[in-house]
């Protein structure tokens, strides 16, 4: 078949863009691009391909950039979704330094995306929904006024309904929350158990912001007395109580009676946990747990037994009279008859703990009953558009970021494996690390070019040796208020790939922590955090094994961000 008009153009462009001479000469390069852009007779495939090639071009000046954007503007109105999305991606990437241009483009693309979301082709609809979710991560309010477009219809396939529920959950705001919740409540009684459960989890997600309304809906659902609904509702309650302590009272009132409708392990664990932690507010808690203890022999899941042990011991602390006998029986069973090692060990552990005296038990078991800061850490604040612009209009949002990471990991391993058989273990991990890191570090603003390696395992001895023979490269003081929750801090540091070597326990005075991190060039950063209680300041001392100021500044800004975030949560 002879080459046709559109193919010609694409070929010409390809040739031009790959030609080093043209690449070297910016003016010619630009001319080629402009000529191609002006060719309006391309069919949609040609247009999409041209837009893809243009991604390689970097405009020299702002003027040139806006020139190109103006030339390409008409592609945003194309009737083909492929072209519109290609143009959007190009705009987002070209305008990476102009957030208002990016926002403007995303506003323009709203119409075509929404049209694709209600398209007749299910597959297209799915891809569009995935991209809507991507945009919502950065601009939470972007689709809020169009929430009705994301209501599920009876005939849609399962995977689309699940995506729509996720989208609804993310775009909820003060104005539409009532309608969205009403719609979601309708889904909870859907014939498909999976979908019903997804809807309940979605209500649970919304409950973090709009607690009262959601808890009321969830409580009503318990009245249905259906196993698959009750178990998910109870799990949702468990997560909710942990994140939003203000709803504890309502949840405790709803719980009695649930135990009859829970059969699966997850649901039982959630219920037992709730009864253990908040048992003092639930009148019949000891008797429900007693029922569980009586049936413990027929219980098949070890996890449920472990949960039962902990819960009963916790409840024993607050209501000793009602639990003592039951606890004794359970401990006896776990130690004497249980075959699962983990459960038996847990039983023995609690037994010895009880021997140490009730005060000791209280000190160990009475951990905080809720941790609102966890929720804030979990759904990290809005991600900048630039963190996903390069993934837009690719398969990444369609797979979801997490699945894509595993896919690209095994692909990378396969590709590197056979090429470098001798240094296999080294080579396979080599090219992967930067990729992984890029994603993580990008989530933090101002991380600069620094890339911290996730699995830098430094032993305590090694740390000590290095620490002692290095000089302090940088010292800084950050504002801080109140005590430190070591777990929260450690988790937050882990997110940015900073390893905690040692840390004082909470409330110690003075409080100290030693951290280490390594970037992709092998440069080590050793850090000491020092908190003197009286002056309310966190003193940071950083040591570096290679003197590189740029990397050091990058590292300090990461550290500052983390400590700043934790500090805000505390205050």
């Amino acid at each position: 078949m002879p080459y046709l008009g559109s193919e010609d153009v694409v070929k010409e462009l390809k040739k031009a863009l790959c030609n080093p001479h043209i690449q070297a000469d910016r003016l010619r390069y630009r001319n080629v691009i402009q000529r191609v852009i002006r060719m309006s007779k391309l069919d949609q495939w040609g247009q999409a391909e041209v837009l893809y090639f243009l991604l390689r071009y970097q405009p020299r000046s702002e003027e040139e950039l806006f020139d190109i954007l103006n030339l390409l503007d008409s592609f945003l109105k194309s009737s083909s979704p492929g072209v519109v999305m290609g143009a959007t991606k190009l705009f987002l990437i070209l305008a990476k330094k102009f957030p208002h241009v990016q926002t403007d483009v995303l506003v323009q693309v709203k119409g075509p995306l929404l049209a694709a979301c209600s398209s007749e082709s299910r597959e297209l609809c799915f891809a569009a929904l995935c991209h809507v979710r991507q945009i919502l991560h950065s601009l939470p309010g972007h689709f809020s006024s169009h929430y009705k477009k994301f209501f599920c219809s009876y005939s849609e396939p399962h995977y689309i309904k699940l995506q729509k529920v996720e989208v609804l959950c993310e775009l909820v705001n003060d104005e539409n929350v009532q309608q969205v919740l009403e719609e979601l409540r309708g889904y909870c009684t859907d014939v498909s158990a999976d979908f019903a459960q997804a809807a309940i989890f979605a209500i649970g997600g919304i409950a973090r912001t709009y607690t009262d309304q959601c808890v009321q809906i969830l409580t009503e659902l318990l009245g249905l007395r259906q196993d698959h609904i009750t178990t998910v509702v109870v799990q949702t309650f468990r997560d909710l109580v942990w994140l939003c302590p203000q709803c504890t009272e309502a949840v405790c009132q709803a719980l009695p009676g649930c135990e009859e409708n829970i059969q699966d392990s997850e649901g039982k664990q959630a219920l037992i946990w709730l009864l253990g932690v908040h048992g003092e507010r639930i009148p019949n808690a000891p008797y429900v747990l007693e029922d569980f203890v009586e049936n413990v022999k027929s219980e098949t899941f070890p996890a449920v037994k472990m949960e039962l042990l902990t819960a009963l011991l916790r409840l024993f602390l607050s209501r000793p009279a009602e639990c003592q006998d039951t606890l004794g029986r359970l401990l006896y069973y776990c130690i004497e008859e249980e075959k699962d090692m983990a459960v038996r060990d847990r039983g023995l552990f609690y037994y010895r703990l009880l021997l140490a005296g009730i005060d000791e038990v209280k000190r160990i078991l009475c951990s905080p009953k809720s941790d609102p800061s966890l929720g804030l850490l979990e759904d990290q604040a809005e991600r900048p558009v630039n963190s996903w612009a390069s993934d837009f209009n690719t398969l990444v949002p369609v797979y979801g970021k997490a699945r894509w990471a595993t896919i690209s990991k095994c692909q990378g391993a396969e590709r590197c494996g056979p090429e470098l058989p001798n240094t296999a273990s080294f080579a396979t991990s080599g090219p992967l690390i930067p990729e992984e890191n890029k994603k993580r570090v990008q989530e933090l603003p101002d991380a600069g070019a620094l890339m911290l390696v996730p699995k830098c395992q430094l032993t305590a001895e090694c740390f000590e040796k290095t620490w002692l023979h290095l000089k302090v490269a940088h010292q800084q003081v950050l504002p801080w208020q109140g005590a430190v929750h070591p777990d929260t801090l450690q988790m937050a540091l882990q997110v940015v790939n900073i390893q905690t070597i040692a840390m004082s326990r909470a409330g110690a005075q003075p409080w100290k922590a030693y951290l280490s991190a390594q970037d992709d060039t092998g440069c080590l950063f050793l850090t000491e955090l020092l908190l003197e209680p009286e002056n309310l300041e966190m003193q940071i001392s950083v040591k570096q094994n290679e003197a590189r100021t740029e990397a050091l500044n990058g590292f300090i800004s990461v550290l500052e961000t983390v400590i700043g975030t934790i500090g805000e949560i505390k205050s």
Partner: protein
Amino acid sequence: MISQFFILSSKGDPLIYKDFRGDSGGRDVAELFYRKLTGLPGDESPVVMHHDDRHFIHIRHSGLYLVATTSENISPFSLLELLSRLATLLGDYCGSLGEGTISRNVALVYELLDEVLDYGYVQTTSTEMLRNFIQTEAVVSKPFSLFDLSSVGLFGAETQQSKVAPSSAASRPVLSSRTDQSQKNEVFLDVVERLSVLIASNGSLLKVDVQGEIRLKSFLPSGSGEEFIGGSQGGVWDRLLAGVYGSIWWLSLMFFPLTEMRIGLTEEFCVGKSELRGYGPGIRVDEVSFHSSVHLDEFESHRILRLQPPQGELTVMRYQLSDDLPSPLPFRLFPSVQWDRGSGRLQVYLKLRCDLPPKSQALNVRLHLPLPRGVVSLSQELSSPEQKAELGEGALRWDLPRVQGGSQLSALFQMDVPGLPGPPGQGPSTSAPPLGLGPASLSFELPRHTCSGLQVRFLRLAFRPCGNANPHKWVRHLSHSDAYVIRI
């Protein structure tokens, strides 16, 4: 860039398999794909799947799986669009797409794929251009006859009032009969609207959404100027000439036999919330997009779309409309539910009113009402004998083959639901419906009716010398339900 393309039947049998790049392993990928598809966990989507270093992307079209594999991280939108375009293209060449037509036309399908994709890259998908390279003729199962009026379908031919085309008229290959000239000159223009509606339990309207399309299917002999424009080497000439004559297609019109089609839409057609045209409320849509081959110079003034119809199918225009509907909704449902908790007796009385104009009617109306778990028996009283109602998959289905505009139908259902708990703490109330009942959803077709009110005023063909007899023009308006949900 795609590596492989294959078509599977609904049962997973490979019908067509083509490897474009030879970079991935063999025919068994088709089998692999089907295994992955059927063994997929419930919470993962089947649209994009991954195995080794290969991504499978597929669409379902009339019961077939059209699958492409690729090893690159390409644009999902373009690829899905390409797959659906391929489906349309195969439909154009083989008649309607289906397992039978594909297996009868294997050679033709391979030939088409060869021309459309080269080494995994798209060359062209225009039916018109491909026509020059395709030699094989389609095998049609049943000889087609225009006057086979035994199955009168939905085609209301406004332009030719005495004749009605059979519903299968448009589902024949566009290019099947090179030799047979008699059947060639036909044009089908469909205005199809999909309606999704959500009505609250108190009758107030929560959501209305209309997705409309004007689709053109042309069986006219080749007439587009595309070949000339596309074939002229070097874009310089195009632009030079364009500068002289204003626009290039006009130039080609002077030398080549061309058909120009003019589609006149309702004059009161307004785009956007603020535009005002004509008298009265007009016909308002929120957004419109046109196919790139449509000339819009008369659209502003007279609402006329001009184009040179390529052979085959083409979506001329798409539009959306939400929230403001000019005409009343086609159906209203007035349910009343009686629920006696003590005896477990559930009584549902449904009254369905059709608010279409008296001359119109709705076809294949089906009401789907999910019921609480454990419904055992059903007794029914229906208002007319042609209706049917039955229980299935935890839901009630009420079928009404035909509903005349302005009419009102009712049905009374009585069910026994043993052991269903009522809403907690409300005592033996009879009014509150049990949980798990509803919402009701309706599906229907409305021939000769558009919910937005958009009509095609006229469809004119300007013929150039080569043309023979006047072509038949069929215009059809149709609305159907996408999701018409009424909460109870």
